[in-house]
């Protein structure tokens, strides 16, 4: 360890650096306090029962049943994962195992480019292009349904899944694969029996992070989910719904500061905050164990 000359003049700088380094902890702490402080009153103003189990979301009529919103968000996220997880894992397997060396980086960069597109642009494309296509294909009067949001979100979470999955697949020791080949295994057998089991937990972490991103996504979902605050019936994939995030944007503009609606929206934000917080902790725990401190750029 190198010993440095310490000068007393350096002390203020060190303190300034320390304060800057603590900034993210301070911010996160403040955010937790505020989300709880502003959200908790909703539980006695509206009641836990009505808020989480009430099926009527009609804030202008004093009804704050958030169950349709929660179901709407869950439906959209689950549909997204049903499309994006198989797609993302397949793409990752192709990039890490089959693609020739010169093609690996261009393919990865192409997928990463999807992450650079702003969410309002995704919403725009979803609203103007994907929704009409879906409406025409399924013969619906409006294309702003669960499936449309899920397709848009798939494009948004795909980079997260692919980046982390390929990274953990690259980490599978070459010797293990070679040993399997030496035993006479085919390429697919090696993938099935060596690559996938070894990188399983990393893929799980990727899916958890994708879940967190999908449930917190706001603008793209708002523009494509249809914004109907009723309980979906029938074929849920083709029903318009209201996502939690979308409701926050739409009603916050009209909510009186400190009023019941304001508290209810904060309570919903608190739920989102806690879900993403736990998801992040979980994914980090898995990735840290696997990668030992290596950090993926897709995390940020």
């Amino acid at each position, binding site marked *: 360890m190198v010993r440095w000359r310490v000068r007393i003049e350096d002390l203020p700088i060190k303190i300034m650096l320390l304060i800057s380094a603590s900034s993210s902890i301070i911010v996160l702490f403040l955010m937790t306090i505020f*989300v709880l402080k502003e959200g908790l009153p909703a539980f006695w103003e509206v009641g836990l029962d009505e808020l989480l189990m009430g099926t009527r979301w009609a804030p202008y009529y004093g009804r704050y049943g958030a169950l349709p919103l929660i179901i709407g968000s869950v439906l959209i996220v689950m549909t997204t994962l049903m499309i994006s997880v198989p797609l993302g894992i397949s793409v990752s397997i*192709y990039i890490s195992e089959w693609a020739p060396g010169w093609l690996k980086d261009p393919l990865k960069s192409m997928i990463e480019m999807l992450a650079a597109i702003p969410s309002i642009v995704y919403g725009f494309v979803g609203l*103007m292009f994907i929704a009409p296509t879906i409406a025409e294909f399924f013969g619906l009067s409006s294309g702003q349904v669960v499936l449309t949001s899920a397709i848009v979100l798939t494009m948004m979470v795909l980079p997260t899944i692919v980046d982390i999955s390929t990274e953990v697949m690259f980490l599978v020791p070459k010797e293990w694969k070679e040993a399997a080949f030496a035993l006479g295994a085919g390429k697919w057998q090696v993938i099935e029996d060596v690559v996938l089991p070894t990188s399983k937990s990393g893929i799980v972490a990727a899916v958890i992070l994708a879940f967190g991103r999908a449930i917190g996504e706001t603008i793209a979902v708002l523009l494509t989910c249809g914004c109907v605050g009723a309980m979906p019936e029938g074929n849920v994939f083709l029903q318009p719904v209201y996502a939690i995030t979308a409701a926050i944007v739409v009603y916050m*503009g009209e909510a009186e500061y400190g009023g019941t609606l304001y508290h209810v929206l904060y309570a919903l934000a608190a739920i989102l905050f806690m879900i993403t917080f736990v998801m992040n902790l979980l994914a980090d725990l898995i990735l840290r164990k696997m990668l030992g401190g290596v950090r993926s750029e897709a995390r940020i």
Partner: protein
Amino acid sequence: MRPEFKDKIMHVLFLVPTLIAAGMLVMMLAFMSEGIGQISWRFLSSSIFEGGIFEPIMGTFFLFLGTVLITMPIGIFAAIYLVEYAPRDSKFVRIVDQAINNLAGVPSIVIGLFGYTFFCKILGLGISLVAGWLTLTLMMLPIMIRGTEEALRMIPQSFREAAMALGATKWETVRDAVLPAAMPGILTSILLGVARVAGETAAIIFTASVLTMKGLPRTPLEPVTSLTFYLFVLLVAIPKTSYKVAFGVALVLFGIVFLFSAIATVIRMYYRRKWKW
């Protein structure tokens, strides 16, 4: 089935999803390119009241400029502390690390709500440019810290030892030997942060922008219209507004964000190749 034959089938089976994923990007680009006909000097330089997008372009520029000025020192100082000063793998570093990851994972709408309550209401800044800066700082900070951290860690130990041999103190070493060498990496993270901030909508809806616009803000305490907010307003109001303007705004926004990300990627690739220590 023979393994070789099965491998061939599987190869094709996995090529298809990859093509679909690549096709998604192509589709996005193709759809965006429909806005090209809308782009003209007149469109870029005239006011929104005359069908142009001058104010939103300037608004986006003002927003990320202020955010970068606030985020840059905090982010760089934080990274310097984490890499150069704090003992490796100390408890403090681990907690800060986790906090950065969690902050990066907070949905932007929650950050927007927090910004509205804390900056606009409690600090009394109102819906204003400065409230937007502070809120967006919370989004850019994790990118800034992580990027700078990575850049600092790439600097070889010999740089620090050489500075020390010349009698430099810890801070002089960091300031004169480590930071200049890490500049390209820091610049990359600023550009990536700008790309993120310029494309953000949810965080500024309640904090920086209002529907009724009276031209450009004259002071930081006035609200501002960004490209993202203007596009949002146009989309919510469709079919009352013109599709054409929306296409143009979306393309300009995409172009700006894409440009910053691309420059960042190029800088990073260039210096990784050139500076092999």
